[in-house]
């Protein structure tokens, strides 16, 4: 037994230092040198202020912006820290709704969201990603169909012709990797930044 304690102690200490400190710190150093923008979180600045990260979705409610997917993230209730309150797109506490396929709560939520969305664009089929929460609650993307669905509302709110907005959506639609891997998607924050950057008129 004694003959086993020395190697166990030495290896635990040495390998902990190597894998728990040297390795992450070396990777941090390399990443900060070689890929500083990504290593810091792919932040987007506008007018000298950080407006978000291109990888992290943020809440949009105004009609003149494209909206992301519903988000189920929460935060502690300021009135009672043992409870949580819904705070969509809380990027300090990621998580999903975790409602199962036979959940009455899921059914109720989708029903409510569908009614709100219908008034945006009556007559069009509603894409499924606009009424389902993402796994992280921070999904930065929507499907091209979900963007197309919102084009009339955004164009109306901004007084822009629909084709102009549609062209912007197309320019901000990313294809699958090599046309195969992943899904077509539109980054909501980048699309909205592009909208804001349009010259007035």
């Amino acid at each position, binding site marked *: 037994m004694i003959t086993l304690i020395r190697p166990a102690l030495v290896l635990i200490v040495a390998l902990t230092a190597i*894998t728990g400190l040297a390795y992450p710190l070396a990777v941090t150093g390399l990443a900060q040198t070689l890929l500083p923008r990504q290593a810091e979180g792919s932040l987007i600045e506008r007018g000298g202020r*950080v407006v978000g990260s291109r990888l992290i979705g943020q809440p949009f409610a105004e009609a003149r912006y494209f909206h992301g997917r519903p988000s189920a993230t929460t935060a502690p209730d300021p009135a009672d820290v043992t409870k949580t309150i819904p705070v969509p797109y809380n990027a300090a506490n990621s998580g999903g709704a975790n409602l199962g396929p036979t959940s009455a709560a899921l059914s109720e939520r989708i029903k409510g969201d569908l009614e709100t969305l219908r008034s945006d664009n009556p007559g069009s089929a509603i894409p499924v990603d606009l009424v389902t929460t993402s796994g992280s609650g921070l999904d930065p993307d929507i499907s091209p169909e979900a963007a197309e669905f919102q084009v009339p509302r955004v164009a109306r709110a901004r007084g822009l012709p629909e084709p102009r907005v549609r062209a912007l959506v197309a320019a901000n639609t990313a294809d699958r990797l090599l046309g195969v891997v992943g899904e077509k998607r539109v980054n909501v924050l980048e699309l909205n930044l592009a909208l804001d950057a349009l010259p007035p008129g």
Partner: protein
Amino acid sequence: MTINGWIQIALFCAIVLALVRPLGLYMTHVFTGERTFLSPVLGPVERGLYRVAGIRPDHEQDWQSYAVAMLLFHALGFLVLYGLLRLQTVLPFNPAGQGEVAPDLAFNTAASFVTNTNWQNYGGESTLSYLSQMLALTHQNFLSAATGIALAVALIRGFSRASAKTVGSFWIDVTRCTLYVLLPLCVPYALFLVWQGIPQTLQPYIDATTLEGAKQTIAVGPVASQVAIKMLGTNGGGFFNANAAHPFENPTALSNLVQMVSIFALGAALTNVFGRMVRDEKQGWAILAAMAVLFLAGTAVTYWAEASGSSVLHAFGLTGGNLEGKEVRFGIVGSALFAVVTTAASCGAVNAMHDAFTALGGLIPLINMQLGEIIVGGVGAGLYGMLVFVIVAIFVAGLMVGRTPEYLGKKIDAREVKMAMLAILCLPLMMLGGTAVATVVAAGLAGPANAGPHGFSEILYAFTSAAANNGSAFAGLSGNTLFYNTMLAAGMLVGRFFVIVPALAIAGSLAAKKTVPASAGTFPTDGGLFIGLLVGVILIVGGLTFFPSLALGPIVEHLAGAAGQTFATGG
């Protein structure tokens, strides 16, 4: 289901298959003590470690010493991890000012990481400091993975040696695995992940002002270094609460594909290590083929179920599959495939919320874990789990023809079969026993977030995941309570050590046996008949054990959903 979806699945399989032989060759060199191309750099480090630790490079252990060394190493790792978590408020690298980790949560998390489970009752970005993430979690990600691989290699030595007293040195196997396999793969992999967008910083969380003027605090940290080993080591414990669904843990379709490949890479390659070390690569391919049959069947079911969507979505006329709990960039196929991969291996990382999967889509991850994650498996854990089933399959074949069963020239006797059954039976004991307790006591019933059969599935999934050392969850379950922290930790510890120790006992007794030459009566174990028999034994043992529990959960939920029924909580 789409053609493109199947092309993505085929692409994934092709990449994994292409890696099996090169990685298998390299790992064989590492574990037979040969020089590798990294020896000039790492050799001095390795020899220095041995000198300080008093390890003789030529000294090997019998299976009992190997097992005691392994248990001692785990016990120390457990104490270090528990201590670091409990002390995180007074230790450095805590820019977000994370508070104290409660004793039961620290106990659960320590058990979780030491056993390579990585069940997340902790919230990641809302609970742990950067130091806890690096020193406590990342280091155990390496060591628990290295231990798993070491054990698989020890069992392989049992098959490949004859009349031997020893099965290798635990210290050397763990050190070489960490230095020569895991670290050299993780450094470039972590940088690739940063390139894809995963943060790697010690800066505090970022305060952003959104376009609509709201405040958004964005959690960052040294994420990439942890994600790399969490995948390669099939640990699965996330830096963030949402795990690989979080855009900072899995930013792109490419990172998703590579992460899935890295979950399978080492486990699949170990079948080739097995083949090479028993001097017949076809034996390794036969085992991988049995794994592939189970994997492809599971993938087809989950992909089909998720692409078909759920009854709730259908009731509103929504098409396009079940996107609830999934990310747009991965879509249906990228999420369904990931779910099958992560539970086929004992990874447990998730890129979509399994809780929100359709009943049948979520059934497959459950079955994968209940079978013991023998499909590729956790690094090492899958192979020794599969070899345990091989022994049972060989035993059954022997009974059928009335001959003493043998495998790779080793006679399989009562002792090996008993040990194999012990390893196989401890999993249902913890999975079903734990579920049974939780469904009758109030503290257990307080856990589920969903009502009806889905609530039962949440409990079943938790105990299954814990005992199988997977770590994925039907995350609606409120697991961070005294009851679940303790019960699940017990499940993890039993699920790990009551499989490992019998597996080592098998290694010891096999290594001591003589090799008998193959004769005309020897059952060939590299052909389709054997693969079929092995798959059959796995499905029969698994089916008989777990079908009743599945019938109460996912299966009844599927039928209720098909009848248009929904379940409300509190009603």
